[in-house]
Every structure is written in structure tokens, then in C-alpha cells.
């Protein structure tokens, strides 16, 4: 394991939620892997820097960034107005939506069916922002907040919650892994975009990072990584 603060200037410490498949998660060998992991590795290489991934508690990500213990938040990090007040964002690199996932056999078919139901989501995530912004929030029975999406999905499977508000990218991955367990209702809560978060005031790093991202996008590396994980080029130009 490694949890060192970037001692040498050349290392980028990237804070990740290591239970956020397929962007950053652990494979059967407990190795960190995922789209964002590959993308960040390639970017760092482009920048001529070494990279360290630091698993963090998603609840504390902005605190971690502002404390300087990590250099970047990069793990399906949704760009929101609120967060823009606290961190600097790169241009969006992937589009996503917050969707409602339920068990395949559930009779929840549309947003209004959430009336009186228990809904799970990741604490302090954009899913929680998306739900708050929707009028249905007033009607759901309770909102259970989890440390990560996997726990929320686990509880969905166990039956403690009726639905989970989750990133489309994430649930797509799980649905491809475990066919027939989940379904996503047609109505989506809110579209959104992922960016990389940099500490306020560190415009220099942001510029350097954005330059590398643009280059990767231009030379096709980004598209290649996207195809590896999503079977298509989903990179935002």
C-alpha cells in the first residue's frame, strides 16, 4: 500500500474511490484497475510524472484535496456548480447521467414509482445532488447514504433499499457483469459530465494537466482506452 503525500514534486497523488467500477476498482487480484486508472496513468506519462493512486473515503474527497494529501480527484468526479466553488475542474472528458437502478424484477418503472420507497446512494456524491434537485425527493420514504456505490448495490440486492441512484457508467458496467440482476428505469434524473478536480489556486497544475489531456485526445490514446473499457469512444472532445 502507499499513502505517502507527494514527497517529490514529480509524483501525482490521485485520490480514488477504489470501489467505483469501471472507472477505478480492484480486480480479483486486488489490483487497482479501471478506465480512470488507465487514463490517469497515460496522462501522467504524458506529463512526465509518476503516479500514485490513493484510495480515499469519497465523503472526504474535497478535504483530502484541500489538505494537499492528494493532488487530484479523478474518479468519475462530476462537475457541479457547488464543487466548482471548492475545486478547479478540467474540461469534461466523459458524459454520464444519474439514473435509477432497481432489481430486474422490481415494479418500479418510472420516477414517480419511487413514492414511498427507500432509495440508496453514495454519500456526498452527485447522485445525492441530482436527487435533491428533483421533486421526487420529497416523496421517497428515506434516503440511505453509503460510503460507496458497491455497498448501496449490495443493499439493493439484499433488499434493504428499493432503488439506487447511481452513475449510468457504473451501473452499465455492473449490468454487463451480472446480467439480469439489475435494470435501469428509462427516465434519467440528470445528465452530467466528469472532470478532474485540482486544488483551488493551483492553476499551473490545471494548465499542465489540461494540456496533456488534450494531447491524449488528439493522438487517439484516449479513444483507445475508452474502447478497452466501453467498447466505444465515449471521450468528449
Amino acid at each position, binding site marked *: 500500500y502507499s499513502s505517502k503525500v507527494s514527497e517529490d514534486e514529480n509524483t501525482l497523488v490521485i485520490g480514488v474511490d477504489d470501489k467505483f467500477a469501471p472507472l477505478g476498482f480492484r480486480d480479483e487480484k486486488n489490483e487497482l484497475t479501471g478506465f480512470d486508472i488507465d487514463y490517469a496513468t497515460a496522462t501522467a506519462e504524458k506529463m512526465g510524472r509518476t503516479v500514485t493512486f490513493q484510495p480515499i473515503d469519497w465523503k*472526504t474527497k474535497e478535504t483530502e484535496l484541500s489538505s494537499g494529501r492528494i493532488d487530484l480527484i479523478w474518479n468519475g468526479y462530476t462537475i457541479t456548480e457547488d464543487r466548482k466553488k471548492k475545486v478547479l475542474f478540467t474540461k469534461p472528458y466523459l458524459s454520464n447521467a444519474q439514473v435509477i437502478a432497481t432489481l430486474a424484477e422490481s415494479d418500479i418503472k418510472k420516477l414517480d414509482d419511487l413514492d414511498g420507497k427507500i432509495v440508496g446512494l453514495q454519500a456526498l456524491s452527485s447522485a445525492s445532488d441530482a436527487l435533491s434537485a428533483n421533486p421526487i425527493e420529497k416523496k421517497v420514504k428515506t434516503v440511505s*447514504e453509503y460510503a460507496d456505490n458497491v455497498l448501496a448495490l449490495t443493499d439493493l440486492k439484499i433488499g434493504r433499499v428499493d432503488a439506487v441512484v447511481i452513475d449510468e457508467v457504473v451501473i452499465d458496467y455492473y449490468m454487463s457483469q451480472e446480467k439480469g440482476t439489475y435494470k435501469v428505469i428509462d427516465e434519467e434524473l440528470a445528465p452530467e459530465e466528469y472532470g478532474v478536480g485540482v486544488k483551488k489556486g493551483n492553476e499551473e497544475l490545471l494548465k499542465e494537466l489540461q494540456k496533456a489531456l488534450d494531447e491524449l485526445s488528439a493522438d487517439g490514446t484516449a479513444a483507445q482506452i475508452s474502447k478497452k473499457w466501453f467498447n466505444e469512444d465515449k471521450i468528449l472532445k
Partner: protein
Amino acid sequence: MSIENVANIIKPMLEGAQVTVLLFLIAIVAAIPLGFLLTLAIRSKLKVIAWFGHAYIYLMRGTPLLLQLLFIVFGLPLLPIIGEYMVLDRFTAACLGFILNYAAYFAEIFRGGLLAIDKGQYEASQVLGLNKWQTTTRVILPQMFRIALPAIANESVTLVKDTALLYAVAVPELLHFAQTAVNRDFTIMPFVIAGIIYLLITMTLTLFFKWLERRFTFD
């Protein structure tokens, strides 16, 4: 930081503190009698029961409460076949975990209390014609309770502090709201407030037990 801000921070934290206090009360009210049953079990003449009691206590005291909570909240429902009947709501599951764990600690305390009671108390009771039940309820238990009181007080304070573990099994309590506020407002205040709330609770509890001890000092 404006007063309104502080109020905004404190309100959810006080609600969280209610969960803390509720868990504490449920756990203590259930764990004390369960612990006493466990004490009886390990003193049982039936070897199997005594052995089981010892193993249980050993297990509970040898592993972290947090692991036990994760096991009950997230693990039990995964058991094959019976798993689906093990789905408890998270707070209930957490209560169960606390009760099962603390029962083991209370059992040890009561065992110590019983050991400290002089054999003469049993003999005097017998010679005076009291039966086993009368001896236990009228002579032994009141003394055991008195002897165990300081240890129970200690354990209760620990229990209050352990309620913070709810944070890790995603039951929103005091710490959860403190952490949320810290991440939102980038200020350390919520932690300080949480600390003060915990201190108030543990202090109240300590005073209560001090009073109880004085109340039951036989002189």
C-alpha cells in the same frame, strides 16, 4: 462563522446525537440482562453450555466490534439459504451487533462480581432457610450489582464512544453529520462540536453512575 451557520451545522448533529443516545440505551438495556444470562451459562454445570459461553465471550472479546458490525450488517444477508431472513434494517443490525458484543463484556464483569462475593453469604442464606432463588435475588444479585457498578460505569462510557462506529456501517449519526459538514464548509468546527457533544454525554453518564454508586454505598 455566523451564528446561523453554526446553527445549521449543529442541528443535524444533534439529530445524529439522538441516534447515538438511542443506540446506547437499547444496547445497554439489552446487553446487561443478556450478559447476566451468559454469566450463568459459563457457570453452568453442563459442560457444553459453559464451553459455548466461554467460546462466545472469547470470540466477541478477541475481534473488533467494527468487524462484528460489518459482519452482521453486510455479511449475514450474504449467507446461503438463511441469508435472506437475515436482512435487518441497518440500525437494527447495528443494535444487534452492539448487544451481542457488549453482552460478552458485561458477562465478564458479572463473573468478576460473583467471584467477589463471599462464600459465607451463600451459607448464611442456606442456614436461614432461603431457597436458591431467594438467595440469588435477595442476597447475591444486589451485592453483585454493587460490586460490578464501577466496571459497568466504565463499560457504559466505552459504549457511548463506540457508537461512533455507526459511522462506518453507514448509519447516519453524530460523526457522519460532522464529517459531512466538514467536507462542505472546510472548517474544523463540526469536529469540535461533535467532541463537545460526546463529552457532555459521557460526563452526564459518569455523574449518573457516581450518583448510583453513592446511592448504593451501604453505610
